[in-house]
């Protein structure tokens, strides 16, 4: 039958497009990076230490980048307030700790609160301007940035606070490499939350509805998806991932301050851009790459050191946008008309 024939042709073409030279390059690049890190770790304990620290920090950047990607996919803007939102929720956890909750109780409560805050923000300040223009939404998120900053300074003041270390101060040794419990814990918590969010999107009806609403709102509404609710939930989940990022970033910063998430937001931008902005996996890989690169550079090139980290990352963002604006995983969409 004619139909069957066209079908098999389309199938062939689909399979053909899966092996795209760009993707091969990216895989080879990542493989190369992994081999480089592996050899480095085997040769030098210092290098291994930096790498592990970098992966732990990178997973935090990755989870904040993932929050950015979620919002970007749903609303098509970068939420500039994502980092401040994470900072705000970290303060909430700090406050809950003062009120007698254990670290992990406060952690769980904070994630729930973050989800509610994210959802409410979408409903109250994003939804009214969402259909006007992208710029309007961007300006609202910048406004949120300033607002949250103000609110946190007003409630808790600008001085440094400290929280209980979630994973203690212990460490263990493998082959002469000292690994802080903290770093393992950071990676585990981020990984768990990312896997949960991914499973939600991948396997549940709600997740399918959210993906449909983000991809094609009009078509999604036609099959009965409540698009507005889906976008609100998307913001809630982004805030939740941000809260995880904030809470896991805090112990590596030693002190909690109203500005502690700002450099991390820049790293998360870089991670998201590196990953291709639309790609959740890309955001994570981007986060890990940025994290490892930064710790290695700070470790081995003290001249760049702590002061020049942020400008360096801005340079990376600029470079990616110039050389490969679709990032590592920004796939060209397969679409036929």
């Amino acid at each position, binding site marked *: 039958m*004619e*139909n*069957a024939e*066209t*079908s098999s*042709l*389309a*199938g062939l*073409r*689909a399979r053909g*497009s899966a092996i795209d030279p760009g993707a091969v390059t990216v895989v080879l690049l990542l493989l190369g990076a992994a081999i480089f890190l592996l050899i480095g770790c085997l040769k030098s304990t210092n290098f291994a230490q930096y790498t592990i620290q970098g992966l732990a920090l990178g997973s935090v950047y990755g989870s904040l980048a993932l929050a950015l990607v979620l919002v970007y996919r749903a609303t098509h803007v970068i939420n500039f307030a994502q980092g401040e939102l994470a900072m705000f929720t970290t303060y909430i956890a700090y406050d809950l700790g003062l009120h007698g909750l254990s670290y992990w109780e406060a952690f769980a409560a904070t994630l729930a609160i973050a989800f509610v805050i994210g959802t409410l923000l979408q409903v109250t300040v994003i939804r009214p301007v969402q259909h006007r223009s992208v710029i309007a939404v961007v300006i609202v998120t910048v406004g949120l940035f300033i607002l949250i900053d103000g609110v946190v300074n007003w409630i808790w003041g600008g001085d440094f606070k400290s929280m209980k270390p979630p994973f203690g101060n212990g460490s263990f040794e493998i082959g002469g490499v000292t690994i802080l419990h903290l770093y393992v814990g950071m990676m585990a918590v981020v990984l768990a939350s990312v896997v949960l969010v991914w499973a939600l999107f991948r396997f549940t*009806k709600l997740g*399918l*509805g959210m*993906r*449909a609403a983000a*991809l*094609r709102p*009009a*078509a*999604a*509404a*036609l*099959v*009965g*998806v*409540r*698009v507005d609710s889906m976008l609100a939930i998307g913001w809630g989940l982004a805030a939740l991932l941000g809260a995880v990022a904030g809470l896991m970033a805090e112990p590596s910063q030693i002190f909690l301050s109203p500005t502690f998430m700002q450099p991390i937001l820049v790293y998360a931008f870089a991670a998201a851009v590196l990953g291709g902005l639309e790609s959740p996996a890309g955001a994570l890989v981007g986060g890990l790459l940025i994290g490892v690169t930064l710790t290695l550079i700070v470790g081995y090139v003290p001249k760049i050191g702590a002061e020049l980290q942020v400008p360096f990352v801005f340079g990376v963002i600029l470079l990616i946008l110039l050389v490969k604006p679709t990032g590592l995983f920004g796939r060209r*969409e*397969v*679409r*036929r*008309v």
Partner: protein
Amino acid sequence: MTALLELEDVEARYGPVHVLHGISLAVEEGSIVAVLGPNGAGKTTTLRAVSGTVRRSGSIRFAGRSLGRRGPDGVARLGIAHVPEGRGTFSELTVSENLRLGAYTRRGSIQPELERVFTYFPWLSERRRQQAGTLSGGEQQMLALARAFVHRPRLLLLDEPSLGLAPVLVAELFRIVRELNEDEGLTVLIVEQNAHLALQAADAGYVLEAGRVVLSGSSAELRSDDSVRRSYLGY
């Protein structure tokens, strides 16, 4: 017989542009009704008024209930599936995900529906995991129809299903629509440029011109009407 869908004096506009100037039509339960007319007559807008994807006024009643100000998701939840022009498939999602979205408003397992859909579209079953965007235009159109069917709607709104399809596929598509109608009692309101095909499949039809109904009747009546013959059937 009572009408499943009833439009009375329905008006719709895109911004300042008035497209529908008081459309009235009725679709009997279990029938196929075609909407014919030249480009810009308001055929697509009529469907969009029903599904709530355009601002409308006037009365639209579905199964005796007013649609009121329901938006597209609310209308879909009442059991109306709209396959828009240009299909509205989610090309980034897989075939299987597209089908699951068709059943979005329903609870419980959709396995029986999926199996039934695969008897109509056997090739869909093998390609469940394929990204919908890699299907050909005709296949995407079939997927859109299959998705609407998984929804198990009481009313199917079908907009220009033949657009851009090879004649063989168009015939296949209409055969399936007819079959769904006869075997499952699916009610269909179809907008179609190809009046010949549409009147062949439909029980009744409405002819729109400039946002008004200018003629209506059974398919046989319309086929024998001189003006319809001249303007739309070309003989």
